[in-house]
């Protein structure tokens, strides 16, 4: 491989360099153990781990998932083993792989977030934090942070104050004005954005006449939400100068390129891991030949091309 061939997938997320732009999305990959049976995790650009909270959580009652046209609903409810177990078991286990970890963190008060952020950001293989301010599944939880620019900015500032590593803020799509939230957290010091988290949705069972999910509503993910993600990234990327990790329904190398054109600098793949456990390394391979066919040398050259040289406006 020539140097340029090796480096064509490299991307820079602010201070964080990734060997390729593809990472599994938080909550869709656990802490990597299960997928390590399918391929060597070193192949990934990064790994976004399951949201970690201060205390261990069981999460919501089951059923926790339901299917929708080209999508799925989940209401896992932030089940996770808690900060201590993540620091003592999961992160050290992941350290055997040459892959940076993006630690997704959640909480229900600013103090919770600050507590988790301070501790987890000191782990040697944590390259960045991802503030989950948008998880729609936990009652009285994240949702409020993600829908108000002020509150989102306050939280960002507090976490930035203690974090040893760059902080990415993961935005909720369930808002009237995504640009307002994005610019508020940028001003508050965010090093980057992750977008989008799931849309709020529901399915009702005709037999029981009740919502399928025990929690009632849940988060919609998968291909169905891709056009919403593309629209939001296209808009936000024109108003901020921090990098964006794009996600929402990615299933193929073509989808990855579409997210780059909209304005993403890296991508995360969630639901598609459930459909095909090999999807991440497959897409990484396919990106090489897709760039060849498109005559593109470096993938980072594609970021924002959808609006940089065009006249169309969102």
């Amino acid at each position, binding site marked *: 491989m020539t140097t340029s061939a090796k480096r064509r997938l490299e991307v820079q997320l602010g201070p964080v360099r990734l060997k390729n732009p593809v990472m599994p999305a938080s909550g869709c990959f656990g802490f990597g153990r*299960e*997928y390590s049976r*399918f*391929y060597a995790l070193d192949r990934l650009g990064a790994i976004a781990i399951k949201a970690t909270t201060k205390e261990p959580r069981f999460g919501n009652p089951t059923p926790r998932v339901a299917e929708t046209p080209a999508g799925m609903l*989940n209401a896992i409810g932030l089940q996770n083993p808690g900060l201590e177990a993540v620091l003592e078991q999961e992160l050290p286990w992941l350290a055997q792989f040459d892959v940076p970890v993006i630690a997704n963190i959640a909480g229900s008060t600013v103090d919770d977030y600050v507590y988790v952020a301070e501790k987890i950001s000191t782990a040697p293989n944590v390259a960045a934090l991802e503030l989950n301010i948008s998880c729609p599944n936990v009652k009285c939880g994240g949702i409020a942070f993600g829908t108000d620019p002020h509150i989102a900015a306050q939280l960002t500032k507090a976490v930035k104050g203690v974090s040893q590593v760059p902080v990415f803020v993961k935005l909720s799509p369930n808002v009237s004005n995504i640009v307002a939230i994005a610019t508020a957290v940028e001003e508050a010091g965010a090093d980057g954005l992750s977008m989008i988290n799931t849309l709020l949705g529901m399915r009702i069972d005709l037999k029981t006449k009740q919502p399928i999910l025990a929690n009632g509503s849940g988060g919609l993910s998968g291909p169905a939400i891709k056009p919403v993600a593309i629209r939001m990234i296209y808009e936000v990327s024109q108003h901020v100068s921090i990098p964006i990790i794009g996600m929402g329904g990615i299933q193929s190398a073509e989808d990855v390129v579409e997210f780059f054109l909209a304005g993403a600098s890296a991508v995360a793949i969630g639901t598609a891991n459930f459909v095909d*456990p090999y999807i991440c390394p497959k897409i990484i391979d396919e990106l090489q030949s897709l760039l060849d066919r498109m005559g593109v040398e470096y993938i980072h050259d594609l970021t924002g091309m959808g609006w940089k040289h065009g006249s169309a406006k969102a």
Partner: protein
Amino acid sequence: MSETFTQPMMNRPGVPQVSLLTVTSNSPVARQVYRMTLKGDGVQAMVEPGQFVHIKCGSSASPLLRRPLSICDVDRKKRELTIIYRVEGEGTRYLSTLQSEDMVDVLGPLGNGFPLGNRDKADRVLIVGGGVGVPPLYYLSKCLSKRGARVTHILGFNSQEDSFLTDDFHQLGETYVTTMDGSLGHKGIVTDIMAHWPPESWQAVYACGPLPMLKAIEQHMAGAYQTEVYLSLERRMGCGIGACLACVCHTPDSAISYKKVCTDGPVFKLGEVIL
């Protein structure tokens, strides 16, 4: 498709993998219930009774998720896997339209199956199945019979029209059938038949079926501490491999302790999880 991607541990027994299998037959065996056989190298990995496969229904984005279906039989020589499924919704409806030569994307084998333990000729074993919980028990019974265990089967269905595999089970051992409407066998439910024997008469009981049935069995076997009881559970699943936490159930240990049906199960020892 997935076959082009390097799978480091292809076709090794018990190791889950994605394989494209070829439909060799697919036809109705009861009302809305189909039996499908699938052929390919991937079948070599399927060894444990009670495990399941996760099947992609079509190549479009909708339906999106794979569907979990139990391994009903395996013929490793012919490299053939049998599944039996009831048409419930979009995914199984799609499966029912497949014909010989069509390809199916199968992830498996998944989960922990029924432990065969040290079953031998001296053992009396009870197998209890209800509805589409019956399929995995067929491969189980075959494996137990091979070891010489004396197996008794109780199979419950809604009605004769919904029943399947009853002849096949008869060939493996004593078999009782119950139907809700009495159109076949005993009119009633499987635990009516179970009541004929003291719970301790079995060295082991294996069951798969609807939750109320499993709960009734749990109750029936409550005092029989000498008997090993294994129950196979169902849960809506995302990944099927333990990563998404869609399929958890509580365990008695604490308010936050849990097991995953897809990887810790689907088969659990009685009492291991809260039904």
